[in-house]
């Protein structure tokens, strides 16, 4: 556990260094859309010059970044001129609630569908086809279509996208588990499916389910941006998109760091599932 924790801290620190380097050495870091407007060009250039002086060296920039995180403000937004944390704080709950509801609904859908499809003798197209089509639709397109036909909100779109992916893995894993020799033997002897699921299949699949849950969380984080932007949900994805459009790199950097932290925490969930099973 201690070794895993040390590795996680190292990963987070490396993510911070890597993303800061990426932003600092990006060719467009010292440019602003306001420079193109004669009314704001002088102010924008002065601000960029001040920023250039502040972030003269990478070490200085990293120290400012870490200091900002320790102070709890994470720097100042270029676009709004307020501490980044002030922008992020109210949006964390919105995105968190959307993620939780979306993932819960997706798992419920995927579990029900995969239990029904894996228990049948032949894998049916009735279950496979919708999942294959959903996997072939980009999140942004699915969200736009739902908006156009005025049915389904951000939670449903997120859940459908995740459920299709989860179903694909769950169906395969459950089908394999149902065909295990000891399960086949038990079925032949008349042991009830419910008991088999509870006593043999689910415990055997637990590590895979843990890994799949982490994967769901990572997929959901990436799908968050198009869904929040298209449904106009004031969450972290929408903030990141706004920051990207307006080249507000301090905000984008902080949101990316939070997302990386969330991915690492999701990975911890999977690690704990394996540890719990092995205990």
């Amino acid at each position, binding site marked *: 556990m201690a070794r895993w924790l040390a*590795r996680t801290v*190292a*990963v*987070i620190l*490396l*993510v911070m260094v*890597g*993303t800061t380097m*990426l*932003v600092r050495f*990006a*060719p*467009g*870091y010292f*440019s602003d*859309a306001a420079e*193109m407007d004669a009314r704001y060009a002088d102010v924008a250039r002065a601000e960029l010059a001040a920023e250039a002086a502040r972030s003269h060296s990478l070490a200085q920039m990293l120290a400012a970044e870490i200091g900002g995180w320790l102070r709890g403000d994470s720097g100042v937004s270029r676009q709004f001129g307020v501490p980044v944390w002030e922008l992020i704080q109210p949006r964390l709950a919105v995105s968190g609630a959307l993620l939780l509801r979306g993932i819960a609904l997706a798992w419920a859908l995927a579990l029900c569908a995969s239990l029904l499809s894996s228990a049948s003798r032949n894998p049916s197209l009735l279950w496979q086809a919708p999942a*294959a*089509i959903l*996997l*072939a*639709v*980009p*999140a*942004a*397109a699915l969200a*736009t*279509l739902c908006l*156009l036909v005025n049915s389904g909100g951000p939670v449903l779109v997120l859940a459908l996208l995740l459920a299709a992916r989860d179903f694909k893995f769950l169906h395969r894993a459950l089908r394999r588990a149902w065909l295990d020799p000891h399960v086949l033997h038990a079925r032949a002897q008349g042991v009830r499916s419910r008991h088999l699921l509870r006593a043999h299949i689910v415990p055997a699949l637990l590590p895979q389910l843990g890994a799949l849950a982490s994967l769901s969380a*990572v997929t959901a*984080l*990436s*799908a*968050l*941006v*198009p869904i929040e*932007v*298209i449904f106009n949900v004031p969450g972290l994805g929408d903030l*990141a*998109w706004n*920051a*990207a*459009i307006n*080249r507000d*790199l301090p905000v*984008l*950097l902080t*949101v*990316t760091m939070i*997302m*990386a932290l969330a*991915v*690492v925490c999701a*990975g911890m969930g999977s690690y704990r599932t394996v540890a719990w099973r092995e205990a």
Partner: protein
Amino acid sequence: MSLGRGALFLLLGLVLAAAAVVARPGASYSYQDREAPLAGSSWRHPAGTDDLGRDRLVRVSAALLLSLAGSLAAAAISTAAAAGVGTLAAFGPAAAGWGAMLVCDVFLALPWMFLLMMVRSALPLTTLPAHSAAVTFLVLAALGWPACARAVYRGAVAQRTSGWMLHARATGLCRVQVIRHLLPNLFPLLIPQFLVSIPAFVIAEANLGALGLGISEPLPSWGGMLFELNNSAMLMQTRWVYLPLALLIVVLLALEGVAQEA
């Protein structure tokens, strides 16, 4: 005919049809027919035009070719990088292996969409459309290799202790020779990884473009054309706006079919 073979033929047919449309004399993805903005289907513009009067069929065909070519290149780069890193980690010193897997963890901890947005927004405002396309696919390649590298690393470690490898090392083959013999043994692992990456990259580009952060205009891209779906006034005028989405779904299903067969 198997599903994978059918999907491959469908894909080849689409690519050939798209190439024929783009190579047609007088076809241009950026030419604006000012007389016919948002026109419906006609002999001159079989799939109508967009709000700037550009031929939609030519643009969709060019987007298909660009997206597939870019995704194929990105998948090839990421698979080659994964093969290199995974093999190096398995056969190099222990510290190199540990370091390579740590770098993989760092990349895997970064959600693609956020990193893509960060890189795309950090480009200069004067970036040329061709450069924006190259950067988009290069970034996808740079983000796509870690998961594959982990799989290659595991495969290479398993091969390291296999009978033929022990025999080869015992007979005095040097490390470079061993790796040369190892690579063909890793192909069954690398080819599915390569094929699975292609639809993932196509979807990532489409999502990024649909947010207005993908390949810049006037170059056509799936994402750029999906962006049109946000214009409800345009949707009322012509149903051809849905053509890029329908074609994208067909292409992705075909790519998935090919990948599953492998």
